[in-house]
């Protein structure tokens, strides 16, 4: 076995020296282009994947080299890969498969990422290879012993050494800008940029650029981290971001509930969610919660990376960016067809198929998923869902790059609802069950969403960039949820009471919008000062039909009507974003954003006439409102050391109001947030370790909290959060990735609403800890992937990983406290050739925990005499769930 391992483990390309290169962090030491292009740096490898020596060629002992021309996009991904020098079909395929999964720090000109084409040689040797020779100026780290690739033998090619006769000679001609592409100072052992005849090293950008960091709390999660633990849904991907916690207390068809850095973002009210920087997922004025964002529309296997910006420091951040923003970058690294069938606990079945045509950009793919489950508990959590996502990136005349996106998703689920803690403690109902009551067992939810977008980008040769995007989405939602049992009385017919508080909510939202931005070239105001300006605008319009009723189960007869409204909204945002570079060690980014929002509300149940009063008018209240919010933002970066970057950032963000809460002519009182942070990022490249430490404060003008009686969010006044975030990420070994984050926050309620006749004893008092928000969130993700042998002539690749989350006790209203939560999810897999088997376990230690806890009045008829004291209620978190997976990679 050892002989076999040594044979092919050294038969893959180049990883050793490449892995030692410096990842993208200010790129102070990236390889330089030769004189004549002094401001150009070459791409460097950040993540590599070993090529596999074709096992069926081992017996022949072929020693060959394949050279691949790789286009490295500005976001560091591989946009195109073509064989320049063939080593035979099997070796060509192996090299292409590997290099398409690489990640680079992009080439830069004057510090600005540019698209570049480089040549990557893969040397396949059947025997162990001599040590890597590293050219002067290149990083000198020793390659990992298991790196499957090695460069060709012999000394590195000198910079002025002519290429081999069978390789194209570098073109020395002057290209369109009068700059002379030159042969680059790199040897064969490293990827080196070669000016192909007629192909200068710098060509037009393709794909969405990787935006610059906007503070220490600007986190990017790649697949290496996202693959560490099972991710049943896209929302679960967010668990790896510092300070995030995600749960799903209302079943599979209702959006996840999210906590971030002391914010109870509920279903998305405080976090701006976008797809590809173009499609907003948050739905304004949703009846179930402002900013409702159901991430189920995305298939987790198609998320290539996630950008989580915690805080509001980027002028691109718009409505709902209060705690921060999340952008999902969709792409599929592994090309080909992949189909995974899963089966496991609670009769859960999931089938996902991903088609990623070879030779296309990672952003071109199609994926579909269906899932059914009976759910845990006594049969009230069953769900059925399915989705599709397709994307196609292609080139258009005029150096335009286009991306078309289409997604559709639908789900229906039964909902178990909440249970009173005292009923569980007295064994009136089991922790994982639901009340036997008819109304409790009639809870359900169904949702659909269809969205499409087209985006265009064009990057000029002077590094200017123009982009434009159009999107449209249609989302439906209907839920029937009973949080309080039997406490409600009809407002239209007050003698109707006690027929079950089954709240039906429906929301149909048709929205469309556009965004456009233009970034100028970089101006050099002085030798020490460069400046660049981006101007942008976006707009979105929504037409929303929403209703809320009380139903009597099981016939779902309507016995009260609470909401019946049509809302039309228009939001127009514009921003200016500048970059000032003060020498190499300091940068100032920032600008101003303004959003105008306008509402037209037809509240058909407004101006309701109480039952005891004589009718004096027709019921209904139509009104309009509009407002403008301003948001200055700025981030200062200073690099006192090559491995240390310091950040200071400030920003003002806002959240649009729930339309139905507005009065006629009201100047749309946005919730505004002031975010401050100071932090540092330290990068220890020898161990490939990065550490981030952030201290932050956010002040929100008014917060929202869940009101169980109405099943929606209500205002609770201004709040303040102060906290610390520590984040450590390391991948010291090839295939090994670890990250740990800890977030500490003190969130307080500054000025809660005063008591009113309707609510004389509000659950909130001044200065109290913000309820439902965990003060401490700790998360760790660890994964390891390794090729450890062969079986029947094919390599075996094993992977293992886990993700663990700890939540400290959460404060609850009325001086109560939820119990701490510690949950571990783990994943194992083994792949041979095109077949992979795996097992995913969520809640590995079968911890019994509450997904969410609430405090409110309920009456589920579990005692002879009802209690009208606010009581603790929980929705159970999932017990141990095991899914077996079988995947075919075709």
């Amino acid at each position, binding site marked *: 076995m050892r002989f076999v391992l040594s044979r092919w483990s050294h038969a893959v390309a180049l990883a050793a020296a490449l892995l030692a290169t410096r990842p993208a962090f200010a790129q102070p030491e990236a390889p330089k282009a030769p004189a004549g292009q002094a401001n150009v740096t070459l791409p460097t490898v950040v993540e590599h994947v070993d090529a596999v020596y074709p096992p069926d060629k081992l017996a022949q002992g072929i020693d060959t080299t394949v050279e691949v021309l790789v286009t490295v996009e500005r976001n560091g991904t591989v946009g195109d890969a073509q064989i320049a020098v063939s080593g035979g079909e099997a070796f060509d395929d192996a090299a292409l498969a590997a290099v398409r999964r690489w990640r680079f720090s992009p080439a830069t000109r004057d510090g600005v990422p540019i698209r570049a084409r480089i040549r990557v040689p893969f040397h396949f040797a059947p025997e162990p290879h001599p040590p890597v020779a590293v050219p002067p100026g290149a990083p000198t780290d020793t390659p990992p012993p298991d790196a499957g690739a090695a460069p060709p033998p012999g000394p590195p090619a000198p910079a002025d050494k002519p290429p081999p006769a069978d390789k194209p000679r570098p073109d020395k001609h002057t290209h369109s800008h009068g700059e002379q592409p030159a042969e680059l100072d790199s040897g064969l052992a490293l990827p080196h940029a070669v000016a192909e005849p007629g192909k200068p090293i710098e060509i037009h950008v393709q794909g969405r650029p990787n935006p610059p960091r906007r503070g220490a709390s600007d986190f990017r999660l790649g697949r290496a981290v996202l693959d560490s633990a099972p991710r049943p849904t896209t929302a679960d991907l967010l668990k790896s971001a510092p300070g995030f916690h995600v749960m799903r207390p209302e079943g599979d068809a209702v959006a996840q509930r999210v906590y971030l850095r002391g914010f109870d973002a509920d279903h998305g009210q405080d976090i701006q969610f976008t797809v590809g920087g173009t499609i907003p997922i948050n739905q304004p004025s949703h009846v179930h919660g402002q900013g409702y964002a159901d991430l189920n529309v995305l298939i987790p296997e198609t998320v290539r990376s996630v950008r989580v910006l915690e805080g509001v420091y980027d002028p691109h951040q718009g409505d709902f960016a209060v705690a921060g923003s999340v952008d999902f970058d969709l792409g599929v690294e592994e090309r080909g067809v992949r189909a995974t069938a899963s089966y496991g606990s609670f009769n859960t079945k999931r089938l996902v198929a991903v088609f990623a045509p070879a030779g296309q950009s990672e952003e071109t793919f199609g994926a579909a998923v269906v899932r059914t489950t009976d759910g845990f508990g006594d049969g009230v959590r069953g769900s059925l869902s399915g989705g599709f996502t397709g994307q196609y990136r292609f080139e258009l005349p005029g150096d335009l790059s286009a991306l078309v996106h289409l997604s559709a998703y639908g789900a229906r689920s039964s909902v178990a609802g909440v249970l009173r803690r005292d009923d569980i403690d007295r064994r009136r109902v089991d922790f994982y069950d639901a009340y036997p009551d008819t109304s409790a067992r009639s809870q359900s939810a169904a949702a659909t969403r269809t969205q499409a977008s087209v985006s265009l980008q064009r990057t000029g040769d002077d590094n200017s960039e123009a982009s434009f995007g159009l999107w449209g989405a249609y989302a439906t939602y209907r839920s029937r949820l009973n949080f309080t049992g039997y406490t409600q009385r009809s407002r239209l017919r*007050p*003698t109707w*009471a006690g027929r079950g508080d089954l709240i039906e909510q429906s929301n149909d939202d048709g929205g469309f919008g556009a965004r456009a931005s233009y970034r100028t070239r970089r101006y050099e105001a002085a030798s020490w000062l460069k400046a660049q300006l981006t101007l942008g605008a976006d707009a979105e319009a929504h037409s929303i039909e929403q209703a809320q009723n009380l139903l009597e189960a099981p016939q779902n007869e309507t016995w009260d009507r609470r909401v019946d409204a049509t809302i039309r909204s228009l939001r127009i945002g514009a921003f200016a974003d500048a970059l000032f570079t003060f020498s190499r060690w300091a940068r100032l980014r920032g600008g101003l954003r303004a959003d105008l929002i306008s509402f037209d509300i037809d509240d058909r149940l407004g101006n309701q006439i109480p039952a005891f009063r004589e009718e004096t008018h027709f019921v209904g209240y139509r009104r309009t409102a509009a407002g403008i919010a301003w948001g200055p933002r700025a981030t200062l970066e200073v690099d006192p050391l090559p491995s240390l970057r310091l950040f200071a950032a400030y920003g003002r963000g806002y959240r649009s109001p729930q339309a139905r809460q507005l009065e006629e002519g009201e100047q749309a009182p946005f919730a505004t947030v002031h975010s401050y942070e100071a932090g540092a990022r330290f990068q220890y490249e020898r161990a490939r370790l990065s550490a981030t430490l952030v201290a932050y404060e956010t002040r929100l003008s008014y917060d929202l909290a869940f009101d169980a009686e109405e099943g929606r969010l209500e205002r609770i006044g201004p709040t303040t959060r102060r906290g610390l975030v520590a984040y450590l990420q390391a991948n010291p070994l090839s295939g090994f990735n670890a990250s740990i984050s800890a977030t500490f926050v003190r969130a307080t309620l500054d000025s809660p609403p005063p008591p009113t006749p309707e609510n004389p*004893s509000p*659950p909130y008092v001044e200065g109290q800890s913000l309820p439902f928000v965990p003060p401490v969130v700790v998360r760790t993700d660890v994964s390891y992937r390794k090729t450890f042998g062969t079986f029947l002539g094919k390599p075996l690749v094993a992977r293992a990983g886990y993700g663990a989350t700890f939540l400290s006790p959460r404060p609850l209203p009325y*001086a109560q406290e939820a119990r701490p939560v510690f949950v571990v999810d783990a994943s194992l897999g083994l792949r041979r050739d095109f077949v992979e088997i795996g097992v995913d376990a969520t809640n590995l230690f079968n911890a019994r925990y509450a997904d969410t806890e609430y405090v409110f*009045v309920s009456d589920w008829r579990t005692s*002879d005499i009802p209690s009208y*004291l606010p009581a603790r209620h929980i929705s159970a978190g999932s017990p141990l769930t095991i899914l077996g997976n079988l995947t075919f990679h075709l």
Partner: protein
Amino acid sequence: MRCLLRSFLPFVLVLAGCGTGTGQPDVSFPALFVSAPTNEFVVDDVTVTLDEARVAFGPAYFCASASGSATLCDAAVGEIRRVTTIDVLGEGETPLGTYAGFAGDVRSASYDYGIHWFLPEQEAQASPEAPGGHSARVRGVASRAGTSVRFEADIDVAPLFRGQRAVPTTKVEGTVTEATSRIEVRFDVASWFSAVDFAAALDMGADPFVVGPGARDHDAVVIRMVSTHPPSFAFVEGEAPAAP
């Protein structure tokens, strides 16, 4: 790095420990009926001697609002979730159960006299503790100038609407703190039955004189129990004062 962590740790500990509470703390203490026994009282020139006087009380809910009505007080700040039969003729205190709730001001109470109409019940029902299925059962003799009649009163105080208490709201002035040791409930059966026209009964010579639902005297008693002479509630801190 180690130095960084060392300096970081104390701050974290301080931060984690400086969280404040979330609203009013919860409290619980005994509820007691403490009125002096009423065996005999005089209405005009009629002397009423009680042989039996039992009243069902509870449950009771306490609100921070001035009105304890179910439509204006969705959430209680305190409650006594028990129905107790009080023997008004008995000596000493009668335990009514436990008051459970939160610290804070209490401005109103709503309660039943043993007959409730909880949601989603279709009609009002008497609890098992209700004497004879009624809110109050009082037996005795009314005497005037050597003439006497026996009387039997069965009083029903039922909620008017589903989901409401029989007494929708009664004013309470009190503050519950963590030092509150008990709540004392007082009512005076004599004042309730002073509304009965015993003189007319004596004039008619009805024996026994029955006061039941539908009778004018019955309604007069109910009005006193609900509106004009409702129970009083007092929150007592520390050791309870000695009974007079």
